[in-house]
């Protein structure tokens, strides 16, 4: 259901302002979402001042700078630090992206706000609970399904058929797109969301897959697919430059084509 405001336990209160680093000349202000389940209470906005001459170049560097030099209790996920694992996805300056490939240069001026991926239950600080997101990914059965016996060597595909998968297989499951989508904010329990649908299309269009009909059946209801209203936030934010909105439109097309 559409709920424009946050529930009572989720409104973000004013938090602590951490001291400025000594002797820094190039300071920048960050406002970061904090929630500690052990303390309970509402989440809060903490303010940090970061010495940009020492913090590296990416937002992930800023978070590590804060953790190492100012506040070791700040919690966030990260792993590869080069845009292939998708762990450090978060909302930075009002847009979802992965912190490790987001440079300061791309950010708007003024205070930078960093919060967890939107409209998800928060485990702690910048860490959302993505159980539902992963369950939706599992729902679309993202693997090859065939009836014919497996060939001796491999399932072959023409170059042209392989090209169909470009712009689809690169998804790193960071959840930036799904949690950017207002439709997903309001109906995330029933609408599969851009990431799962991009993945669904990746298998629908695969020339080797033989379960196209069943896959389409699995998406045929008022919510799972059709809650996409082409708001385009998904394509606007994808840190890998993929276009879930287009993939969803193509699934809708396949739905129409199979009945006509």
């Amino acid at each position: 259901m559409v709920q424009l405001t946050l529930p009572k336990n989720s409104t973000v209160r004013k938090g602590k302002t951490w001291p400025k680093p000594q002797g820094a000349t190039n300071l920048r202000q960050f406002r970061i979402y904090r929630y500690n389940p052990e303390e309970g209470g509402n989440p809060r906005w903490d303010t940090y001042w970061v010495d940009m001459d020492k913090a590296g170049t990416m937002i992930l560097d800023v978070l590590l700078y804060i953790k190492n030099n100012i506040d070791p209790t700040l919690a966030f996920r990260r792993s590869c630090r080069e845009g292939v694992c998708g762990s450090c996805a978060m909302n930075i300056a009002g847009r979802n992206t992965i912190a490790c490939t987001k440079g300061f240069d791309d950010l708007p001026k003024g205070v930078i706000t960093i919060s967890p991926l939107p409209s998800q239950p928060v485990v702690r600080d910048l860490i959302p609970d993505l159980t539902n997101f992963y369950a939706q990914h599992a729902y679309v059965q993202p693997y090859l399904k065939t009836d014919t016996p497996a060939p001796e060597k491999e399932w072959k595909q023409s170059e042209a058929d392989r090209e169909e998968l470009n712009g689809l297989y690169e998804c790193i499951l960071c959840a930036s797109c799904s949690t950017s989508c207002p439709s997903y904010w309001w109906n995330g329990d029933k609408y599969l969301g851009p990431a799962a649908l991009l993945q669904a299309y990746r298998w629908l269009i695969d020339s080797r897959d033989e379960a196209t009909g069943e896959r389409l059946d699995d998406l045929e209801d008022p919510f799972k697919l059709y809650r996409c209203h082409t708001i385009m936030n998904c394509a606007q934010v994808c840190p890998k430059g993929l276009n879930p909105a287009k993939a969803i439109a193509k699934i809708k097309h396949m739905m129409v084509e199979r009945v006509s």
Partner: protein
Amino acid sequence: MSGSSGADARPLSPHLQVWRPHVTMAASITHRITGVALYFGTFLIAGWIIALATGADCYGAIEGILFSWVGSVILYLWAVAVLFHLVNGIRHLLWDGPNIGFDPGKASAVSVFNYAFAILGAAAIWFAAAGL
């Protein structure tokens, strides 16, 4: 939303509260708002036509309302809503038919064009009507 234990006590992360909207997102909600506005606006236009068919006194009364300051603003906004819903509706047809117009940069540019088309187009209609 999540089925894992303790999820009910967990706060929901901010969404609209932190989001910095794209023009495509604005165009989407505007499309919906103008759709609703057209539903109610149609009653207004229907009333106008019915009044015209009923007779001079009745038409005079409704004309007094429609061409008052407030009525004029509503009529202008209705014209904006018609044009925006029309041009953005064509965009929806291009999205869902030939599946074109999905490039984020181009989609943003088209959104800006749609707003300009609606606002300036309604103004053009206004001045054309005033010249009659």
